[in-house]
Structures are given as C-alpha cells and as structure tokens.
C-alpha cells in the first residue's frame, strides 16, 4: 500500500507542469519541450555515467537562442567533470560556433535590448543625486541590466512561481501556469533541506543554476522556464522519498492531504482550461 501511495504521489508531482504546459500551449510548444527533453536525455546519460553527456547542452542554443548562456554556465559548473583538455577545448569551440549563430536572436530577447523608459528614469535619478561620483557609482549604464537581471534571477528563485503561479492575483507578462500542485511545496522543501545527502545534488544544482542564470538574461522567461522542470521535480521526488522514510505521520500527510488536494488541483487543470 505504501509503495502504491508513494508512486501515486510521484506521478501527481511529475505530470503537473507538463500537462498544464501542453494544455496552455497547443501550438508553438516544441522548442520549450525539446529543451526540457534535452535535459532529460542528459539526466539519463549522467545516470549511465556517460563521460561526455555535457555536450548535449550545446544543442540548447540551437533549439532556441534564448538558452545561449546555458552551456557556458554549465561548462563552468562541470569544468572538472569534463575530463580531458581536448574535450574542454572542443566544447568551447562548438560553443563559440553556436554562439555566433545565436547571438543576434538572443540579443532581441535579452535584457540588453534598449529600454528608453528605464534609461530616462536612470537619467532622472542621476540628476537627483547631488554628488556626481556617487551618482555614477549607483546609477550608470549598467543599472538597467543589473536591475532586470536581479529581478529575473529572483523570479526563478521564487518558490511561489512554481507552486502558486506567482502570488495571488499577480498577473505578470506570463501565462501564470500552475506548475506543481501547491502541496508539493512540502516534499520540495524536504528535498531541498536534505539536498546535501542527495548523491545527484551536483547535477541538480548545476542544471538549476545554469537554467536560472541563463533565463535571467532574457526579458520574459515565460515558457522558456520549462527547462527548470526537471531539477525541481527531482528535488520534490527526493523529498517524497525522504518523507516516506521518516515516521508514519508524514506518510499519513501524503495519504490524507497531499494526494486528494493534488488530485483536485489536477482536475482543475482540465475542467477550467
């Protein structure tokens, strides 16, 4: 019985985002899903201990130039695990080639596109600061990018983004997708707390941080953030596993609250499309 409940919980956790994503994007879903599938393939190769599985990341900017920074950041994280010098150089050469192809489109999506309104605000702010040097230090040409990057990075780090489609009544420039049933937050937090005991923590973090940072470089993360599905799902999965290994009250929580309410949330996806 315990095993059945465990697997029901895992299924309810894992199918949520893909279903809500497909239901909301009947057309034009391909690049986002393919990007997520690349990471699934990478995960499989990683589990099979395939040496050069990181080379798969180089496909991402080809699928969509928005993911341009992903292979670069992942390279930094995996610097030691890409074993030979030749492999490292090859990776960088291919990345350089891919970047040359993707750069123009990436720029159009990126936070570096001109923003006249934000620039005007910066100019106003500079005029309000009496000390010219201080003004230059705090309000300069990079301020707009810094602020956008910070805002985007925290969007990716905001748990409410994944479990409550941001905050109640907050509608941003996105689809406000329900990515996980909100009670998945508990297993996710468990997984996060015990992440240092997770043997795959390095892979999970490198993917999560590479995704979050690369997404922070673009103006609107909507749908592109689907590449975060796998690392978050894996953390929630490890949390469910942990919950089932602890005392029976957690098992009861899963059985009595998590599964019924998650099921209700899942039905809502279909009946209130």
């Amino acid at each position, binding site marked *: 019985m315990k095993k059945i409940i465990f697997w029901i919980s895992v299924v309810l956790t894992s199918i949520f985002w893909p279903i809500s994503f497909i239901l909301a994007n009947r057309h034009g879903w391909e690049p986002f899903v393919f990007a997520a599938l690349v990471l699934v393939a990478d995960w499989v190769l990683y589990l099979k201990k395939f040496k050069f599985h990181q080379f798969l990341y180089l496909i991402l900017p080809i699928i969509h130039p928005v993911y341009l920074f992903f292979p670069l950041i992942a390279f930094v994280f995996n610097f030691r695990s890409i074993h030979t010098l030749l492999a490292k150089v090859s990776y960088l050469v291919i990345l350089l080639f891919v970047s040359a192809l993707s750069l123009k489109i990436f720029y159009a999506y990126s936070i570096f596109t001109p923003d006249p309104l934000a620039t005007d605000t910066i100019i106003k702010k500079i005029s*309000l600061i009496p000390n010219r040097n*201080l003004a230059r230090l705090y309000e300069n040409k990079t301020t707009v990018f810094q602020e956008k990057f910070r*805002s985007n990075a*925290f*969007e990716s*780090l905001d748990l409410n983004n994944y*479990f*409550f489609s941001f905050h*109640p009544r907050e509608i941003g420039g996105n689809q406000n997708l329900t990515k996980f049933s909100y009670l998945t937050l508990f297993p996710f937090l468990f997984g996060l707390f015990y992440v240092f005991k997770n043997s795959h923590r390095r892979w999970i973090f490198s993917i999560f941080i590479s995704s979050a940072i690369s997404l922070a470089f673009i103006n609107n993360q909507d749908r592109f953030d689907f590449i975060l599905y796998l690392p978050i799902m894996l953390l929630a999965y490890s949390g469910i596993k942990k919950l089932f290994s602890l005392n029976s009250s957690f098992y009861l929580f899963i059985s009595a609250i998590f599964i019924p309410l998650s099921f209700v949330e899942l039905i809502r996806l279909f009946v*209130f499309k």
Partner: protein
Amino acid sequence: MNNLRKFTPLLVLLLALFVGTFFRFYKLGATPNGVHIDEAALGYNAYSISKTGKDEFGKSFPIMFRSFTTFQSPVYTYLLVPLMPIFGLTPFSVRLPSAFFGSLTLLVFYLLVKKISPDKYRTQLSLISVVFLAISPWHILYSRTAYETNVALFFLLLGALFFFHSLKKSWLFILSAISFAISFSAYRAETFLVPLLVLVLAIRFLKPLSQRLGNYAIPVLISSIIGFLLILPTVSIMRTPGFQARTSALNIFSSTLQKPWGYQKAVSPIQKSVNRTVLLSFKEFFSLYTSYFSPRYIFSIGDSGPRKPFPDLATFFVWQFPFLLVGFYFLIKEKDLTDLKTFVFTILLLSPIPASLTREPYSTIRSLPMVVPLVIITAFGTLKMFEILSHISSKTKYLIVCLLILVSTAKMYISIFHFNDYFRLVYWDYGWQRVVDTIPDLDPNIPIQVDNSRGHPYIELLFFLQYDPATYQRDNFEVSAAEYYTNMTRNPNKNLGRITVKDLVWGTDTENVEKYIFADGLTISEQQIAEHHLTLIDEVRYPSGEVAFKIIKTNPKIK
C-alpha cells in the same frame, strides 16, 4: 591593542546605534515630504485629546480611534498626546514616537539576541544582528513614519527580553506582562501574535518554571492579573463591528466581498466539486503565507504597496541573500541553540499569519515582527559563512562585510533622502501644507470648498490648519458616543468654518455660488476651467512638475 580589542564590541554597538538613530531621525519631519492620511489622523486625534480629552468625533478617551472607520489602535495616539503641548502638531512630532521607539528597538534587540544566544555566538551574533537591524530598510521605513506597528514591535521585543530575564529574576515577569499587554493593544497583528508567543514561551519553559513554583507563583499571578487588566479594554470591544470592520473587509476567508483567488464560474458538477471556496481560500492563504518567505519579495520587489518600499530598495539587501540561506540551514541543523531557535522560529512562523489573512501579498506593515527573525538568521548565516570560509583571514571577511554595509548604506541614503521625495510623493499626500499656506492670501469673505472625491482631505486640513478640535467636534456629527464602535455610518461632508469638504458637483458647485475650490490635479482639467468660466488662482506641483492641487475660483456672474 588589547584595549582596542576589549572595546571593539562596545564601539561596534555604539556605531550601530548611531547609524541606526541617524537613519531614523535625520530629516524626520521633512522626509517623506507630505503627511499620509493615517499619520494625519493619528496626529490630529492626539491633538484633539490633548486639547479637549475627546477625539475628532467627540468620544472621550476612546479604546480604539474610529478614524475613517478603520479603528486605529490606541497606543500610538496616546503616546503622541504628551508631545502635543511640547512640539505642537507637526509632521515631526507625529513621527517622533516611531523614530524614538525604532531607535530604542535597536538596543532592546541587541540585549535580547545577547540573552538568547548560546555563549559561543553571543557577542558576535548580537553585534552583527544589531548592525543589520540598524541598516534594515524595512525597519527604517516604519521608524521614519507614523505607524503603530513599529511601537508594537518595540514592546513585543521588550516583553520577550523581560521574559527571558525573568527566568532568573522572577519579578521581571511583571514588566514582561506589561510590555506584552501594551504590544497587544498597540497593533492588530500583535493582538494575534502576542498571545501565541506567550503561549509558546509558556509551554517551552513550563518545566523549569514549575520546578521553582515557590519563587514564581506570586510574580506569575500578579503578571497575569496586570496583563489581563491592561488588555481588558481592547478585549471588551473585540466583538464590536468597529473592531472587526477592518478584519472583515480584508479577510480572505470572508468571500462576501471578493471570491477567493482561483474561483471560477462553475457549471458542471465536476467543476463545482473542485471550485470549493474553502479549499481555494486555504490555497490563497497558503500562497500569501509563503510569499513572506519569497526571496523575490524580500530582496527584489519589497512591499506591494506604493508607499512601502523606498525606491530601488526591497526589505533586505541582495547581498544578504546567501547569508539568509546559510543561516536558515544551520539554524535548523544545529542542536544547541534552544532559546534562539524557539524565539526565532516562533516569530518567523507566526508573524506572517495575520498578514496572510489579508489579500495583499507581502504586506510589510502587518508582518513587521518578521524583520527580527530574518535579521537574526542573516546575522547567524554571516557567522556560519565566516566559519565555512575559514581559510580566509577574519580581517578580510569583516572588511568585505563592512564594505557591503557601507555601499548599501550609501544606496539607502540616496533612496530615502533623494529618490523617495521625488518618486513617491504622490502616495504620501504631498502638497497639503502648501494648499493651507495659500488660504490666508484668499478673500476671507468667499467660502472654500475642498473636493472630497479622493482620499480624506478633511484630516489633512485639520492637521495643517491645526483646527480647533472643540469647534470641529461641535460642527461635525457622525455618530453618538454610544454608537462609536457599532455604527459604521460615515458623514462624508465636513465643515471647518468657511471651508466645506464635500464631493465636487459640476454645475451646482461651479456656477451658482462664488467660491474657491481646492481639488487635486486629476479632478479639474484646463478644458473644464475654460468651459465653466473658472479662474485658476494657484497650483501646487510635485517636484516632477505634475500638478498635485489646483486652487480655482468660480465666477457665477460671468455665466
């Protein structure tokens, strides 16, 4: 050298207190420029009490102040009363208790953290914590403006400090009870928080206290009686519509005004079965609750209200994020932090609850007590980070943190004293002082009408005119004293001598009688002035150049 090392903690503490006090007192009456209606109401009611013993509605020494039928907690207003004869009714005097208790909070906070920390962290944790609170944009915002929440937080911390000390000196229980009782009555969130905190502390320390029952029986009994007597007035009106008015209007579980988030029109039985208000309200509450732990709100956006965050600042600085994460992790993991853990997690987990019951996400005013555990966790994270980075010298680590503090403090200075008075003035009800200053220049025989369609301008006029409370009470009846807490009817029109405050009716008000009309920049356009043959007497503008108020004169004879 030894002497310097010996006095370093004292120097750091003094520096933190100095910087903290500076940010709370500097240009207190001038920045934010403008007096928000809530501040004006607190100030004028205190002024009215000091002159007549009654509030603006003629109620003698109310338990809660009716105000705009929002019923303000009484402690702040009563703290203002003795200041009125000394400082008069000014923006400075109204914000003074907040700045004073905000600064004093730093000292109490330092002593509290020192008291509840284990020996190995005591000095460093209390010092880093007080430095972080001294430069906290969240705490500074409520210390520079007249909000009851800041005073309530001070008494909450004072109560906790006395409580932990009372475990050794039993008579301090009485002071703890008094402080908690004042905090309970000082702000709505504390009305919920204080009893739960006391309950948690009582459960946590039941065993050691019961073992020395002989020493503690009488102080605990006296404390309970005093505490109960002090909260009794507030408790006595808790069931009145007045006390509940604000709670009912904002409560997410009350679906009469607004359906819960996610509620959709359900047609089929299956839709109805998954569209239950209770389930959706629970989800909304849960979502609001977790928003108080969202790094996006804490470090990037800040409060959702337009007045609340200073421009470009959230509630904490971005560089504190890794410290907060590390602090969280180790605070949960380490086992010998009993008192610190009890206090930090109790406040951390309880203080967002009252705020989460309202519809606004991340309301920093209602969750202000949360600044305390978050600051402690961040400070603890800093210490643990220092331990993790043991290969870097202590001097380098402290130098980096000092540099970050310095850069952030300068940014905060710019935001508070240069940006806020440009970008946020519209939300701080800027311009009423200028409006009132023009009145003596106007013809005294012509009546004045102030448009009432937005906000509550009458309270700004009362505040800046320092209008005689006795005359105001005589000329403006809203409810009898007996119905003060029960009758929610409002009188929208106010009479202040030759000034009438009411909604502007085009035609009736603009063409029949010769009068001056004061209205905000949105109410009267250039085209309307021309169409209705009005004369523009003066304009009050925001620093950005936009019109805040127009002062016009009607010309019925031309018509």
